[in-house]
């Protein structure tokens, strides 16, 4: 191997990691699962880099070293030691290490006080907070708030095709499969907002199926949960009547806003939608302008999604509707 051929392999990762101001999400964990994985990842990268350099040096030596100096490489015994003995030793050590670390995690599982059901839908996330009996106490969408330092048990299922639930900062992914409920336990260690995204190809808008997990301190989380369990607050927009009337007339077949007659189940529950970070499963920032744009051009922004573009509203109607929705906090 020519030394200059090694450069791309060895230098590129260093340059690239240097170029990124932050570590990639997987290596910058904020939850117990992710922390464990990050530890394993560094072991893997370190070991991999060492083996790569050693083998590349061997190959370079085999090609370029003086003929006399490389005689020891010629024997089948070298193949046995380097190709059989070394991998068996290294891989056994790796297997024992990873199984030990995984076992540690399995043993640490205690009953999680907070249970949340997450259902993958094309192409958004239905989120339901459950009580001890498994009844829904709060339904929301595309956003999940959890208490810091507390194990959360997520029951993952799907309403249609395969999806996969993944928040790299907190945990590895787990698939959502029709007819099954997969359970993922995760804990956030630090308060913050963590982005997640569907990781299993699920059709046209697989790319625009993101969500956020917001980790809050315990008391803060309790306040949040209590507030969200209330019906939508009385609107304070200039023309609340018009916005709400339009919503009931055009949107209630698919959407719920608790506290109003709108009780549709097909689309996301929009009670408190004004307080969410994003619209359309992480596709747009959330403000009255983007909301109006989404209502009028949902098929333009996220083509193929289940919500038709409501381009029949006048500009004034659109503003009223969007402002009313934004006021739902």
């Amino acid at each position, binding site marked *: 191997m020519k030394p200059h*051929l090694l450069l791309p392999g060895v230098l590129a990762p260093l340059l690239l990691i240097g170029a990124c101001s932050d570590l990639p999400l997987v290596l910058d964990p904020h939850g117990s699962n*992710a922390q464990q994985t990050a530890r394993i990842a560094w072991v893997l990268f370190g070991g991999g880099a060492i083996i790569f350099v050693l083998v590349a040096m061997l*190959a370079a030596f*085999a090609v370029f070293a003086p003929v006399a100096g490389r005689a020891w490489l010629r024997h089948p015994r070298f193949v046995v030691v380097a190709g059989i003995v070394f991998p068996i030793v290294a891989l056994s050590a790796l297997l024992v290490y990873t199984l030990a670390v995984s076992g540690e995690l399995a043993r640490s599982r205690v009953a999680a006080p907070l249970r949340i059901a997450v259902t993958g839908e094309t192409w958004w996330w239905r989120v339901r907070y459950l009580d001890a009996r498994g009844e829904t106490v709060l339904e929301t969408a595309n956003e999940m708030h959890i208490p810091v330092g507390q194990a959360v048990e997520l029951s993952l299922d799907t309403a249609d095709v395969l999806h996969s639930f993944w928040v790299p900062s907190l945990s590895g992914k787990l698939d959502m499969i029709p007819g099954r409920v997969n359970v993922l336990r995760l804990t956030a260690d630090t308060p913050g907002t963590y982005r997640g995204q569907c990781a299993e190809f699920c059709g046209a808008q*697989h790319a625009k199926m993101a969500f956020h997990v917001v980790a809050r301190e315990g008391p803060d989380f309790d306040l949040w949960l209590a507030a969200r369990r209330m019906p939508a607050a009385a609107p304070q927009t200039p023309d609340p009547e018009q916005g709400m009337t339009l919503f009931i007339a055009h949107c209630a077949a698919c959407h719920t806003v608790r506290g109003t007659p709108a009780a549709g189940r097909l689309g996301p529950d929009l009670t408190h939608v004004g307080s969410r970070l994003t619209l359309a499963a992480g596709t747009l920032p959330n403000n009255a302008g983007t909301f109006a744009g989404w209502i009028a051009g949902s098929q333009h922004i996220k*083509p193929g999604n289940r919500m038709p573009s409501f381009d029949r509203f006048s500009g004034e109607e659109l503003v009223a509707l969007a402002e009313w929705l934004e006021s739902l906090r």
Partner: protein
Amino acid sequence: MTATSPPSPTSLPSPLPRPADELARLEAAWTPPRGWKLLTAVNNTYIGIFYIATAFVFFIAAGILALLMRIQLAVPENTFLDQGTYNQMFTMHGTVMMFLFAVPVVEAIGVLLLPNMLGARDLPFPRLSAYAFWAYLIGGVVFFGSIFFGNAPDGGWFMNPPLTSYRYSPGANADWWLLGIGFIEISAIAGAIEIIVGILRTRAPGMSLDKLPIYAWAMLVFAFMIVFAFPAVILATMLLELERAFHWPFFIAELGGDALLWQHLFWFFGHPEVYIIFLPAAGMVSLIVPTMAQTPLVAYRLIVLALAGTGLLSFGLWVHHMFATGIPPLSLSFFAAASMAVTIPSGIQFFAWIATMATGRVQLKTPALFVLGFLAVFLIGGLTGVMVAVVPFDWQVHDTYFIVAHLHYVLFGGMVFPLFAAFYYWTPFLSRQQLSERLGRWVFGLIFVGFNVAFFPMHITGLAGMPRRVYTYSAGLGWDSLNLVSTVGAFLIAAGVAVFLIDVARNFRLDVTNNAGNVWGAGTLEWLPTGNYSVRSIPLITSHEPLWDQPGLAADVEAGRYYLPGTATGRRETLLTSALDAKPQYLLQLPGPGWTPFFAAAGTAAFFLLLTVKLVVPAILGGVLAIVMMLWWMWGSDPGPNHAPVDIGGGITVPVYVTGPASHSWWAMVTLLLVSGMLFGSLVFSYLYLWTVSPRVWPAGGAGIPAPVFPLLAAALLALSSAAIAYASRALRTTVGAGHRGHTMVRISLLAALPLLVAALGVELYGQWQAGLRPTASSYGAVVYTLSALQGQFVLVLLIMGGYTLARSWCGLLDGQRRATFDNTMLLWHYAVAQGLVALLLIHGFPRTFG
């Protein structure tokens, strides 16, 4: 070096001088068709070159799709491609690279090189190769064409239901994949059977298995892996197409189906597929490295063990593609360990190549550069492969760009780099001049640098959270510059491929007879002087590298001093030898050019492709055309002992026709039965798997199962039909020539056996139907009827083969000696009966026992 003393010049098998017209007669028998009649060519050299060229065109086409995708992803929120187009493109990129490029190209190189490398004149079933090629070409072009109509598959190359089933993919897109790819897989299996029988039975005398070139070993393991792996995905595509077309619910959870059944079947094929692509490439490297270093390969036996070990182990780790599906931790640990273990055989080969390079002195010519590039890139792919075998790490990187990087390091590194090495290495075997060393360095440099620039950053993109198969992404997630760099790298690769095409256009001049010859000083037989007939005379082999260890071999072979220095029967022929020690057994007469393979392939393609667009009647006409053409070509392929045994030189006289277990057709049929057994086994697995998932849809305590009289009657009918065939076989043994009384007994037995087989199937179907079972009601109903449907396919084939055998009997083409046709029908018959009995036992015994 392991040379044993070569035969002394005086003891060479065929004495000089050779008869004046011997060479001319040999050339006449092997004259290739010209002009538009090239469509009738069946010779392995021609088919091999057509095959490689076609596969390379698909490589470029799928590469262009990749470039378009890289343009789309170069910047965030790009609108160059819409989501529908992008989803079709990534699906087609993966599908075409896997099914229309990688597997066909390695099979094609096998078809091209193996006969010469083994010292054979051709593979044993030239028309089968031609058929496989034409089916692949027609099917592949139509399949690829679907993208120009916006109608291409868009569910990913893995085609996971429920997304790809009728509810979420109502259009024809998914059907193109299921029918188009299903049928290209059949073509791959045809090629695999050809390669297995070719390697085991057409080697030059003396080339015992322990002298087989490593490449041929790799191709043997490769072909057996196709035989064992492809049936699983063929069954999966059958099940999904049944679900899409007739709503038989295999994958629908509400009706007792399970989406994970698809994933098990698909990855049971899909993981071995990686090694199916890699092993032939590793085999090529094992020939190129010794030549470039001018020294024999170190640790030959260990490498053979490693190839076989890879083949076996690769069937035990499909679940590592499913770590994130929620499978229990204990089974995950098993598959993690198995996934790590499979790196050991690769390690053995790796260090054997290094040891070989250390032993000799590597000339850094273009093939050697590509081999070194392969070592570096594949090593990284192997290391990341160990990483993703670690379950928690895989949970993070699964379905992200880390995996995109990993799989390209493995597949592009493990297969495309060796392929370019092979192009540069073997061009002098095919062309009047070799490819340019100067351009070759550019090709290597651009591809190597471009590859690493494109794919290395993807490891980090994946760790930064970017999932696979997204048509766009938001700005500000830390993915922007990484993606831009990857796009630049992709275009560097494309530039390298473009330079390669220029090199080919400037320097490749196809001419097998006056090829550039052994420019590298290689030691294997394909570098002997060659013509369309392969070697002038078939050498006696005494070492791994005969051209190095047997002085004067090339000249003696060319002078006709070895075995079979001409054509003994005046036709194309090749020498059949024993599987282990390559002792001459008989002379196989090979067919010359003909139209039947082309039209049979066109008919087969028409059948599958027209079904996709629901043109049922034309599709059936295509199917009939295919069957008629196949029967036509079969008609002449069982000549009987039409020529006295021939002297091939050295005092060896061999017959020109044999039947029974020594014959090549028996071996091919047994291999086909292995394929059939795997197909049936996959269906039995599906039955049992669905039961473990949804026992609720299985009949409880035997209720709702047909009364025992039905399966018992069906089993009796099956047994009787097998008995009738066995009786016919005995009766046939006594017959010599026409007019014997035994002929009547053979015909009566065959005529009786056919309806018995049909009746057994009818009884089973009637029993299920009258018991109230419907295939659309539940996964249980679906799988029970599918067991009968599979049996029905065998019955249909046997009706045709049985009728054909009868026709040959009536025409006086079947007797106690000329019975290869009957033997093949008999083997398939007994197999089908056994399969039917096992199916009955499963369908009727299992619910009664465990219900």
